[in-house]
């Protein structure tokens, strides 16, 4: 096992990784920007190295500074978390060359899953189900003309997806051919700006679809299992807000089928460590289609931990250290239901406008079936340089209804003053009929007019 791990991330996931290090008897090294000098994860680390510049490019995305910190502290392994350098194959290659273990997949597996159009083509060629769409990337004027032909053949609506993008950035639906040119412009410009990749691809848009993903673990010997499914259809701007596991539409047969496909995908990538395979499940034809691979731990991974008792971060560290999984598919049993609400510093009454600032009071909930993975405290000023996630609130129950009731109780207990949060959104969403029925789709927030309900409840004095 490693003696020292550098955590190349910030916020709740950095703190989480350090907690696991402590339990495993591994020393942890934090790297932090000037904006994070007072952050909780820095206080929890055994050593902390300043990266300076609060801008991500000068700190958490700066390969040179992070590798320098690793060398200086005698680090044996780097834990990447999610975001920042977690899916940067160039960084992984440099770690490999320096003999520092990257706690994630080898750069070859990561490269095979990138860019997104290539992953789609690869999976299609291996017989994995993908939604009808374009083969290869679309880039430049001539290709754009061809795109109209492709869209005509597959039928509208189509979704335009930037090849290099993450976090839903630059994705746009074209309802008719009149929207297509605009959607392509949008994908190209956002893709270039955010990721330096102007290429994009087209897919048939699944209007009544559910986002269902599978957690995979694979060790260095190639033992590969799916741990659990998760549903993440409650999104706005393609960013997840509420997730649950299992998916309300999941059956043992469907799980075995989709989980089997997810394992096949991991094998195609020669994957090692934690992987999430995302699918779109169409409620129109009851078929699933490969969406993308996330070659890292996901934000919502604790749902799977609640259902299985498997500590995914510890597993990642164990796998990176060369240990075997030590269990097979049949050993993994799912127990009960889990819900996650992302507690973000944003104003749900003002179109989710970010709300950075100083937290004046902070009392998270507790009790049976409640877990809070947070990175903030009373008196902490949330910087505006990074994303708005303050904490992940999870509930567990024997049934879905129990998990929902525990979550509602915990949300109402959560006491945060000084910054606006999206807690009112969660309270409204959990009481929504379509959510309760479990038949909600990725269009949930718009279709169910959650923002309108929120504004009305504010007028009625239900929310301050």
């Amino acid at each position: 096992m490693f003696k020292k791990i550098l955590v190349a991330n910030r916020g709740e996931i950095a703190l989480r990784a350090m907690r696991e290090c402590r339990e495993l008897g591994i020393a942890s090294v934090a790297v932090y920007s000037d904006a994070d000098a007072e952050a909780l994860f820095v206080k929890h680390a055994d050593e902390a190295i300043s990266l300076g510049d609060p801008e991500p490019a000068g700190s958490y995305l700066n390969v040179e500074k992070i590798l320098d910190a690793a060398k200086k502290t005698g680090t044996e392994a780097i834990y990447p978390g999610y975001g920042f350098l977690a899916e940067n194959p160039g960084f992984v290659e440099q770690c490999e060359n320096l003999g520092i273990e990257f706690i994630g997949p080898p750069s070859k597996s990561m490269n095979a899953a990138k860019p997104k159009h290539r992953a789609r083509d690869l999976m299609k060629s291996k017989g994995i189900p993908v939604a009808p769409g374009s083969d290869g990337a679309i880039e430049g004027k001539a290709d754009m003309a061809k795109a109209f032909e492709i869209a005509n053949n597959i039928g509208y609506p189509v979704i335009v997806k930037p090849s290099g993008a993450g976090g839903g950035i630059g994705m746009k639906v074209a309802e008719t051919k009149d929207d297509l040119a605009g959607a392509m412009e949008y994908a190209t410009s956002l893709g270039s700006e955010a990721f330096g990749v102007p290429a994009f691809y087209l897919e048939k848009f699944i209007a009544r679809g559910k986002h269902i993903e599978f957690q995979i673990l694979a060790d260095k010997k190639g033992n590969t299992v799916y741990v659990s499914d998760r549903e993440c259809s409650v999104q706005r701007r393609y960013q997840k807000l509420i997730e649950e596991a299992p998916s309300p539409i999941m059956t043992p047969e469907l799980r075995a089928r989709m989980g089997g496909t997810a394992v096949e995908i991991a094998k195609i990538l020669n994957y090692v460590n934690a992987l999430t395979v995302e699918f779109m499940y169409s409620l129109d034809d009851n078929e699933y289609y490969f969406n993308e691979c996330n070659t890292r731990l996901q934000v919502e991974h604790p749902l799977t931990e609640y259902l299985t008792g498997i500590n995914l971060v510890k597993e990642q560290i164990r796998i990176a250290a060369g240990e075997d999984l030590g269990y097979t598919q049949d050993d993994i049993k799912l127990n009960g239901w889990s819900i996650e609400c992302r507690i973000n510093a944003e104003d749900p009454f003002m179109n989710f406008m970010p709300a950075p600032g100083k937290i004046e009071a902070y009392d998270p909930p507790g009790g049976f079936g409640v877990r809070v993975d947070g990175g903030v405290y009373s008196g902490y000023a949330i910087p505006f340089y990074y994303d708005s996630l303050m904490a992940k609130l999870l509930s567990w129950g024997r049934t879905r209804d129990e998990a929902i009731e525990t979550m509602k109780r915990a949300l109402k207990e959560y006491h945060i003053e000084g910054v606006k949060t999206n807690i009112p959104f969660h309270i409204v969403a959990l009481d929504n009929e379509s959510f309760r029925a479990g038949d909600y789709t990725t269009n949930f927030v718009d279709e169910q007019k959650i923002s309108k309900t929120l504004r009305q409840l504010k007028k009625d004095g239900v929310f301050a």
Partner: protein
Amino acid sequence: MSQEVIEAPIPGKIVSVSVSAGDKVEEDGELCSLQSMKMQNPILSPVDGTVVEVKISEGQTVETGDVLIIIEED
């Protein structure tokens, strides 16, 4: 004629400025874009009018309440 003082609604960084002093602007026209928590927040003109003064430049960080732009309403 009244002056509209446009202030930063949240802290962040100015990533683009779309207007200069003397420009005519329309209601809901973009004045500048404020990046905060990885989100671009367009700052829109509340009125039809003329830009009197631009107090910010690209790349500058601002705090809540900082004056960004002053507009004279038509």
